[in-house]
Each structure stands twice: as structure tokens, then as C-alpha cells.
């Protein structure tokens, strides 16, 4: 299992569009992807649960990947978040 902390910079936080981009990107990996935020673990492949986690702009989250392709999944996740998730 690998993990890394990252800050969300989307002006309105992880709402529908950026969360959709993230969930879709993570669906390609076999590893389980978890977003740890505010003491709660959220399935990083579930758009509904990411939106429901109410992650606001400026929040620090921990991305955790577990599985055969965990290194690559984590690298992709961090790159996607840092480049603004299409916004």
C-alpha cells in the first residue's frame, strides 16, 4: 500500500466535474483507491461518495492506493489533482 498527501486547488472544491474526472481516471486501475479526509475514508472510484465528502478548496487530503498497480495509480492520482482535474 502506498499513500501521499496533496492539496485540492479547485476553486469550488471537489464538486461534480473535477470529482468525475478523478473517479473516471481511477477506474482504469485495479488497485483500491481511497481518499482520506477529515478522518473519513472515501472510495476514490465513487463519484457520489467523493462529492458527498464535501472536500473544499484548500483542503489537504491523503490518497491511498492498494493493489498490483498501486504505484502507478498513486502517481496518476497526484498528477491529476495537481493539474486541476480539468478545471
Amino acid at each position, binding site marked *: 500500500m502506498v499513500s501521499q498527501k496533496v492539496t485540492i486547488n479547485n476553486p469550488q472544491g471537489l464538486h461534480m466535474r473535477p470529482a468525475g474526472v478523478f473517479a*473516471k481516471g481511477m477506474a482504469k486501475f485495479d488497485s483500491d483507491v481511497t481518499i482520506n479526509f477529515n478522518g473519513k475514508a472515501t472510495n476514490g472510484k465513487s463519484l457520489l461518495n467523493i462529492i458527498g465528502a464535501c472536500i473544499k*478548496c484548500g483542503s489537504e487530503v491523503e490518497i491511498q492506493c492498494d493493489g498490483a498497480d498501486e504505484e502507478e495509480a498513486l502517481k496518476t492520482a497526484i498528477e491529476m489533482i495537481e493539474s486541476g482535474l480539468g478545471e
Partner: protein
Amino acid sequence: MYTGIGASAGIGIGSAVIVKEPSLAYDNKAVSDVDAEKKRLAEALDKCIAKTQAMADDMKERVGEKEAEILEGHVLLLMDPEMTGQMETSIADDKMCAEAAVEKICDYYMQMFSSIDDEMFQQRATDVCDIKTRLLKILLDVEDVDLANVPEGTVLVAEDLTPSMTAGINPKNVTGILTEVGGKTSHSAILARALEIPAVLSIPGITEKISNGDKVVLDGSEGQTYINPDEKLQAEYEQKRVAYLEEKAALAQFVGRETKTADGVKVELCANIGKPEDALKVVECDGEGIGLFRTEFLFMDRPQIPTEEEQFAAYKKVAETLEGKPVIIRTLDVGGDKEIPYLALEKEENPFLGFRAIRLCLKREDLYRPQLKALLRASAYGDIRIMVPMVTCLDELRAVKNMIAELKEELKAEGVAYDENIKVGIMIETPAASLMADVFAKEADFFSIGTNDLTGYTMAVDRGNAEVAYLYSAYNPAVLRSIERVIKAGRAEGIMVGMCGEAAADPLLAPLLISFGMNEFSVSATSILATRKGISLWTKEEADAVAAKAMSLTTEAEVEAYLKSVAKH
């Protein structure tokens, strides 16, 4: 009369057609063949995804890309592995039928979203509800309501208009929309605006109050609705409808035109915004730039100061949306009257005369430096200009400029891009700044007159106090003299002078501002075309004559009466 949210402007008059969803009742009994039931669910999900995608494609073609976005979001939601997994679990563990599993899990997410008090989350609850209905219809093999064939002059009345219903709407036949739920950003609202159908949303119980065939009059600008109005009222609204359409057609001619007087004197016409996402609306409404971007929202409703990174992202987004057009960003303008717990500002007797805006920012460098640095970094992505609020003396402007010079050195050392020639101007909203305008004009790169506060501070009046609110008017000769001297002082030094207060959109004041030589008008996005038209009606010579006369008058009432008597339409 019933009042709701005016979500799509215009007047609609027609006969009510009530849209009711067919019953989605099902026989809720335990299933014995779990695998067969899971297969039913999987097939329904696949069908639903295909159908929603087809609806999105159709919407994109008929209405627009933005309107299709909600439906594309539904496709993503339908592919959520956690949601579909929970539905399967309900079938396997609780022996639920597919319908019950869909209902249970969708209800869970709707509950989760609707418990958050925020319009964006309410919209997500609506999305999940739409998906639930669509899935149940597929499972139960129920047809969608077909709105393609309603007669001409129909006012649609529904609890909510779902994307599946609106797919077939013909704007030629539908003259209005009324619903019980939905806000300005709901699917119904977006669609109504795109199809230019007047709509009033969120009228509680409206489907019970109206019967099929009732005569309905609705005002989508004001959010009002009348059922079976008398002839007089109906005639009144018929007139309003014609006037609205004429005005709209007249303004449409001004889209894409330069903003200039009748004799060709060009001015810049920009818009005021409060959030980065409003920038797109400015572009859509044909604004030539942003004359005031208030940054307070970035600092409100949060536990700590926004980071430089976060601010940079917001400023960059606006600069990029405007594609090189000017963007004037006002630095933080708060004081003891705003609730910002992490700033720990003391309550004071007179917050509007106290520790606020630039006075606060210069003492709190931890607050100000990250904002200025973020602005400098964002200036590499467009024509960003920095505006300092509530300036009263030259030292304040100099202090800000020094800080900016230091930050530029820092960025240079770090190898980060920024605009070396970024303009730094001031908002003129205090009598002190107005009286010293000739001095400020030598050191500021531009002025923007904030008439709302300038009027308040000049007349020493709190507009919120009903006893004295009558004094709050930009037609007061004192305020007009102040505006005139600021514009002339700025122009004498060759700097840009704009106005971002409400007065900039006042057609009565247009000839005065043109005559004084103002270069830039900044108004709300929805006032852009009307302001462009207002400016185009005057020649410089006519404006000079009106200004000379108006400035010779001695009371507010005389000025207003005179400006009204010479107003052009």
C-alpha cells in the same frame, strides 16, 4: 398571486398543461433467484447509461454543450461502482427486487446530499432522483411523458421538469414553465434560459393549485404567477410581454458592437463579478473586460486564510476566461462588519470608519502578501490589474507599491513568471481620495470610482437607515462634483478612469460621465447591453450641453428632474 424564483426572464401567457409522472409502483416481494435479479439490474443500468448518453448527445445538438453537461454527469453517476455495488448487495443479502434496491440506494444518496445546505448539493440530490426515476421506468417498462406534442400556447406545470421530460420540448408551443422545486441553477432553469422560455420555479404546491386548461400569466423576471387573471391584468401583462420582447430585440443588436457614443467616442464596457465562475457570464454577455472582481468571497466561510496557491488558481482562472481582456482585481475589502473568525477583528463602534480594507491589509502582511503574490503570478496569464480599496492618503498607495516591488524581486529570484508592467490603481470611494485625485493621478495607474461608498461617505449617510436613506443619491450635486473632479484629474494625467458603482449603469448619468471624459464603465453582466445602448444614444456635444446645465443646478431633486427631462430611450 403566487411567488417563486424567477429563473428565466420574460412574460409567459398561456393555458396550463399539468405534467404528471406515471406511477412507478412495483410489487415489493423477496426474490428467490438472486442471480437473475442481479442480471435484471445490470441490464437496466446498461440501458439507462445508453439512454442518458443519447439524451445528452441530443441536448448538445439541440440546445448546447453546457446544458448537456448535467446529463453527462448522470452517465458518470450511473457508472459509480460503489452505488451499483450497494444495489447488488441489497439484492444478494436482503433478497430485494431490483426496483427496491435501486430505490433504497438512490434514496440513501439523495438523503446524504439534501442534508447539506448548499444549492450545488441540492442539485446533486435532484440528479440522483432523476437517475432513480429513469432506472425504475426501465425496470418497470414505463413510457416517458411526451411533451413534444403539447398545443401552442402551453404553460407547462410540473413538480419538476426532469431531463427525460424536457428532451422533446418545442419552444414554439411552450410559452412558460412553472415548477414546485428547483433553483436558478437547476436543470429546468438552465434549459428554460437556453430555450428562452419564461419560467418561475419553486412555487410550493403549484401543481395542486392549477387545473388543466387554466389561464396562466407568469413573469419570469420577477418570479410571479397569476392563475385565471381578470382581463385587465391579462392585458397589462400582454403589454409587458410585447415591451420585453421589443427591448430584448433592440438590445440584441448591440451584441458584438463596440461601445461608443453616437459620434464615435470609444469607451470600455466591463462587468463586476464576485466569484471566478461569474467570469464566463461576462464573456457570454459580451463584456469587454472585468472592471471589478471582488475577492472577499475567497476569504469568507472558511477556517483559515486562503493560501497563495488557492488564490492564484482563482485569479488565473478569471484571467484565462477573459482571454487577454483587462481584469481589475480589487484586493481584500473587509472590516469589523464582516464575520471572518480567523481574522479575529474586534467589533468596533464605526466599522465603516475603522480598521478595514487597505488599512487592515497593510498591518496584516500575513494576509496581504500572499494575495499580492498570487495576483502577480496570475498576471502571467492575462491582463490583470491590481486595485487598492478605500485609499485615503498617498502613503497607503506607496506602501502597496513598495510591497509589490519587493514581491516582484522575490518572484524574479524564484524564476516565476509575472507581468513586470502590471498596473496598480486605486478605488476612489472616499472624499479624501477625491479631493487628492490630482495628486493620486501622478502615482496611480488608474482610478475606478466606487460610487456606492463615495455617495455614502460624501453625504455621511448610511443607506441602510430608512430615516436618512433619502440622502443617499448620486444625483446630489456634492457627489456629482466629486465624480467630475476625479475624472478630470485622472484624464489630465492621462490615466484610465472608470466607474464600478451602480451609477455606471444609470442611463440618466451617462451623458454626464461621457462629458467628463470617463473611459470605462463597469456594470453587472446583465446590464452590459443596456449600458452600451445608453452610451450610443449621445454625441459628445449633446452630453457636454446636458452636463453643463446639470452641474449648474443646486439640489438633488432639480438634477434628477432635469436628467429625466432630457433622457433618451
